[in-house]
């Protein structure tokens, strides 16, 4: 695209006829066959293709599940059991869909962290990055609403807690939650609308993905050096080089996927979700799906309800501003030793937050409660205090990036993509 002149030449009469009416083959050719791509992309760049595959898998299995699923509070749980026991291959299709959501999030987290590390969010790719954040938001909404559909205990109380987050806002809060529920509690109307939206949103995601790829193909790919493409020497055609590389990554990813689907399908879920929803009894320990755990930990780290909710939304919201927060002229952290260190800590902190989210807040970190002393409202030796420190770092990281943009002294950056292959070490 981007002023690139097209190398597509229709060969048959029909394709010539089509090309002068709807140049769709040309579009595909220029985007995925002859698209000039930096020659030094590593495997972190293969997750875009993996993500597209994940979306395809979710839509294909989801549409099929919807043929057997009943969105009614009295029938939903049993219809999922019906899928598991009676529908031909139903168990497999459902396990693929349920595991697929986890795999999708695994891939998107890698994809996003790749972006942060190599500075892919920086000019001229800000819109590309923001569209990615929009996709991530839509994915979270879709994943959340999908998890409500089987109408088990975890489904029900997940829906209760998340919809109540909006109740934290003064004045409008109560009206908004009633509106979301369509009643005075999570109930049948809530389930129905969640099913409708769970069906819709993935197609909206697909639409935003098109914009995302469009915004990618204007400036072209970033690359591990973060240096702009300078000449034709720096690029190779997308096909066959990256179709093959992406394909190989997809196969590896599918192996991991299959291990979960066929050998440990319930490892990523919760046993309580095989208990039908009971609005009168909350299970003893409720936790969200693993991909929401870091945000859940941030929510619980803050003692005040509204502040906690704002911190949680802020943790996602801050990503939208990243292109302007991380303003260092050097894109790739390969050449930013300080930023690289803080980035690695950031990744560990996110994992740590996930760990905190999975544990009860007052549980001691060491020993069985004998050790430690009370600081403020809780024992210092507890998950709630750990999550407070980690939450502080989560937000501080963005401040650090901003400051580093002024003070950090980067390593020498290669003149072009082609030079480091010869003279620089990898990083």
């Amino acid at each position: 695209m981007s002023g690139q002149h097209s190398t597509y030449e229709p060969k048959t009469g029909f394709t010539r006829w089509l090309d002068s009416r709807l140049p769709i083959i040309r579009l595909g050719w220029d985007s995925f066959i002859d698209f000039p791509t930096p020659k030094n992309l590593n495997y972190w760049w293969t997750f875009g293709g993996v993500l597209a595959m994940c979306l395809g898998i979710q839509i294909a299995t989801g549409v099929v599940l919807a043929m057997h699923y009943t969105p009614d509070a009295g029938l939903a749980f049993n219809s999922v059991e019906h899928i598991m026991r009676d529908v031909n291959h139903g168990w497999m299709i459902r396990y693929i869909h349920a595991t697929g959501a986890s795999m999708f999030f695994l891939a998107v987290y890698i994809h996003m962290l790749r972006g942060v590390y190599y500075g892919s969010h920086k000019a001229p790719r800000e819109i590309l990055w923001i569209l990615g954040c929009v996709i991530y938001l839509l994915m979270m909404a879709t994943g959340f609403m999908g998890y409500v559909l089987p109408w088990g205990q975890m489904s029900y109380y997940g829906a209760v807690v998340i919809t109540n987050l909006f109740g934290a806002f003064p004045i409008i809060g109560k009206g908004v939650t009633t509106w979301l529920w369509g009643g005075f509690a999570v109930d049948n109307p809530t389930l129905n609308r969640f099913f409708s939206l769970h069906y819709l949103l993935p197609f909206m995601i697909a639409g935003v993905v098109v914009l995302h790829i469009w915004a990618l193909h204007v400036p072209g790919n970033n690359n591990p050096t973060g240096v702009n493409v300078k000449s034709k020497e720096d690029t190779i055609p997308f096909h066959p080089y990256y179709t093959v590389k992406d394909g190989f990554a997809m196969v590896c990813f599918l192996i991991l996927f299959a291990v979960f689907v066929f050998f440990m399908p319930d490892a990523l879920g919760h046993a309580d979700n095989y208990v039908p929803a009971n609005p009168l009894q909350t299970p003893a320990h409720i936790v969200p799906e693993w991909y929401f755990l870091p945000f859940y930990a941030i929510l619980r780290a803050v003692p005040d309800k509204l502040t906690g909710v704002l911190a949680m939304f802020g943790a996602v919201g801050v990503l939208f501003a990243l292109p302007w927060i991380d303003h260092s002229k050097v894109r790739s952290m390969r050449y930013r030793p300080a930023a690289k260190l803080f980035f690695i800590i950031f990744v560990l902190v996110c994992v740590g937050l996930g760990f905190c989210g999975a544990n009860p807040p007052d549980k001691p970190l060491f020993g069985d409660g004998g050790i430690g002393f009370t600081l403020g409202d809780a024992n210092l030796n507890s998950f709630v205090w750990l999550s407070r420190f980690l939450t502080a770092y989560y937000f501080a990281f963005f401040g650090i990036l901003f400051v580093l943009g002024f003070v950090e002294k980067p390593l020498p950056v290669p003149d072009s993509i082609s030079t480091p292959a010869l003279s620089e070490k990898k990083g």
Partner: protein
Amino acid sequence: MANTVLDTTPHEAGHGDPSRRDFIHIAAAAGAVGALGAAVWPLVDQMNPSGDVLALASIEFDLSKVMEGQQVVVKWQGKPVFVRYRTAKEIAEAVKDDNASLKDPATDASRHKDGKAQWLILVGVCTHLGCVPNFGGGSFGGWLCPCHGSIYDTSGRIRSGPAPRNLDLPEYAFLSDTKVKIG
């Protein structure tokens, strides 16, 4: 007339008020926005509680089903309502803490009907994020919320944890000594 329309310098003299054209533009835009709003509103408002949901406004409950020291959970408007028959000890503990430092100060007397201190009737929805607190849990013998650890006392007042308010009181009235109408 045609001249007026094509005149590119209408602000000079002549044909009435120069802001008439602006007025037409603004009126048309406002009309379009109004029409759009009118079309969108039903699509938004349909998500609010429907007539049949609103109609399930009240229920009656027979108190003789609850034993002293126990609680029964009934469903009202899709929400759990705790009907707790408090022991003398639980009432005394609640009254004793009337002047303790409370996040959401309230006397025990304000949380039950006059002369019915044994009957504590509360909406069983944690004021944090809506889970159902467990009966008898927590250090005050009231309720413990399993979700994020909010602790309520035997008056349903918030004593520790992230919940901001005491458990809500539903609207209710005693129809007789053994019958209560909730809602």
